[in-house]
């Protein structure tokens, strides 16, 4: 329980800090870079390396490569749908999340498993 709380606090602070940076910067295409900041990864890897060791954290980072490729596909599709089709933001970003899961797990099965 203590570990989960620690993860919530560290993760919350890291994600909020990067999001705040994004709010401060213009143009929006540049600020958008911070939407893909390694905030969750930094918070998780620090705690994982300290608790489970560097080899374990390194294995997580290897899988993260595939998660980041899925993120790229996700962000491209969301951007295109919002700019060209002008679909509602919340439903689009939520619905396309299925694509992130599909890409990430298909890549994982194909490359690592």
């Amino acid at each position: 329980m203590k570990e989960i709380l620690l993860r919530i606090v560290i993760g919350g602070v890291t994600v909020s800090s990067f999001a705040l940076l994004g709010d401060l910067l213009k143009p929006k295409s540049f600020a958008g870079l911070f939407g893909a900041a390694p905030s969750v990864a930094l918070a998780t890897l620090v705690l994982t390396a300290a608790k489970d060791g560097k080899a374990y954290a390194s294995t997580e980072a290897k899988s993260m490569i595939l998660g980041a490729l899925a993120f790229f596909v996700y962000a491209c599709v969301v951007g295109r749908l919002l700019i060209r089709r002008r679909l509602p933001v919340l439903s689009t970003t939520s619905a396309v999340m299925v694509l992130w899961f599909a890409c990430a797990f298909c890549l994982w099965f194909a490359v690592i498993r």
Partner: protein
Amino acid sequence: MKIKVDSSGLRESTWRQYLVRFAFGGMITAMAGIIAKHFGPGIGGLFLAFPAILPASATLLEKHEKEKKERAGQQGAGRGRQVAGVDAIGASMGAIGLVLFAIVVWLRLPKSGTGMVLTGATAAWFIASVTIWKIRDQPGIWSRRKHFPTSKHPISTQLHKGTNHREEDE
């Protein structure tokens, strides 16, 4: 287009919105740890690149832009969605940097100190993302890839100047 620091974005957000992002970020980080514990680091690692903050940020951007337009007596839904779309395209460039971040951590972490590796990987993410953004910002690149708006593209320019001559809002 020059990169600027503009604090007006901070004034538009409420404490509740910051709290939502904090809670969302914290939950995703905790979830990544729990998934890794139950299914192993292979599956857990995928969630280190989960698009945690993009939906919340894009929704906030849409809301702020819509309100701005409505204060000026215009419909703002379409413009809000365009701004959120430009933000997402920026995130796609950041995602390429995220791939580099993960590669650096994967290869270097077993051999070097955690702090040094994570600092170096974050620097690699930032440099790669900004370089890709700069390359995309070139007009020549834009003309070949018309679906990826750069800051010089009409959509981004209008958004940046606060005008939208092709008002197509609903």
